[in-house]
């Protein structure tokens, strides 16, 4: 099965380990197990969105109410959420942990993912959003912890880009 079950569980456990109890999500192939695990976990509130920008508002509300949260989305979902990120997270200084599957990079087979892939990092940089890649299983836990620390101390959005090497297992 192409999407890595083991590494999805790793990401989920790390996310829960840093205190996340509410997750908003819009599906994409690489997220199938993460969403399934969240849905199965009675300790996690999963909010399925119509579009990604809503998740920025939901995370802000959760933060106001004292609950740590995260957003699960594709890089095109990040691009969809820019106005919310600027008008809520950056304007009001609200922590936001974004887990973004980084489609359209080396190895991509779908032509339509390639344009979003080109612009994800430049747009993150344009907004001065700190980001890092998750590509090796060993990095998942420490990088998740560091990302959450910075989001909380800087009251800012941060992004972890979930890489193909981590999320995808080529069929044997």
């Amino acid at each position, binding site marked *: 099965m192409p999407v890595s079950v083991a590494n999805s569980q790793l990401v989920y456990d790390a996310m829960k380990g840093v205190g996340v109890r509410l997750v908003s999500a819009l599906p994409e192939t690489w997220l199938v197990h993460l969403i399934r695990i969240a849905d199965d976990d009675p300790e996690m509130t999963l909010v399925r969105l119509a579009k990604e920008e*809503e998740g920025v508002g*939901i995370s802000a*509300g959760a933060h106001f*109410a004292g*609950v740590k949260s995260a957003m699960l989305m594709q890089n095109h979902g990040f691009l969809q959420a820019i106005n919310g990120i600027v008008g809520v997270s950056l304007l009001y*200084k609200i922590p936001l942990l974004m887990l973004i599957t980084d489609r359209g990079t080396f190895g991509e087979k779908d032509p339509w993912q390639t344009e979003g892939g080109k612009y994800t990092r430049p747009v993150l940089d344009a907004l001065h959003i700190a980001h890092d890649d998750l590509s090796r299983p060993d990095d998942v836990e420490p990088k998740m912890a560091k990302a959450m620390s910075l989001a909380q101390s800087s009251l800012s959005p941060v992004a972890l880009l979930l890489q193909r090497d981590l999320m995808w297992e080529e069929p044997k």
Partner: protein
Amino acid sequence: MKRIDCLKAIYPELEDCAVVTIMGAVAAELYSLGHRANFFYLEHAMGLASSIGLGIALSQPNRKVVVIDGDGSVLMNLGGLTTMARSRPKNLVHLIFDNETLLSVGGGAPGGYKWFTTATSTGSDLAGIARAAGYPRAQLVREMEDFEEAALGAINGDELSCVVAKVEAEMPKSFLMDVHMLENRFEFPRALQQPPKDKRELRRPTRITKQQPTTIPALKSLEE
């Protein structure tokens, strides 16, 4: 029907709620009735007030959340109505003042609002959309008496409810709000750290009087 009269009618009920408003006229008028630390005014990101309300409602299921929205903002996040209906938080009330215009982003020009009409001016029915999205209750009201009954019923009720109130496209007397966004952003979560009152105590089925409240009562209640 005037928005300010609607706000006056529900103001006393908002004391123990988390209240999230959109920008512009609604925020300024609620503020003019007396700011409270449990009011959050979202001054930008049109459409996301209801999403913020949803995040609060899911995180503090014992607190009543009141979102005070507008037609222009709702239309910018119409899909959010389906997310709301799907999550169906019992503790959330979604009030939408529908003046059929993006008043607060164009009211600076005399008559500007006439050019800034929204789709509700040409037949889009937000209460109908909310019902079709799956809200268990969604009601359109045009008269003060109906608004009071619907809004107070919703605030004191126990299910996700939407009240769409058709109001005049009238500017507030003043847009002055002496609370900075970042100040509001910090005082609001502090207010939400106070445990909500017993829910039974909150359910007052009697119709409230329209007396003007004293200012900043929530700050006082924080000291209790």
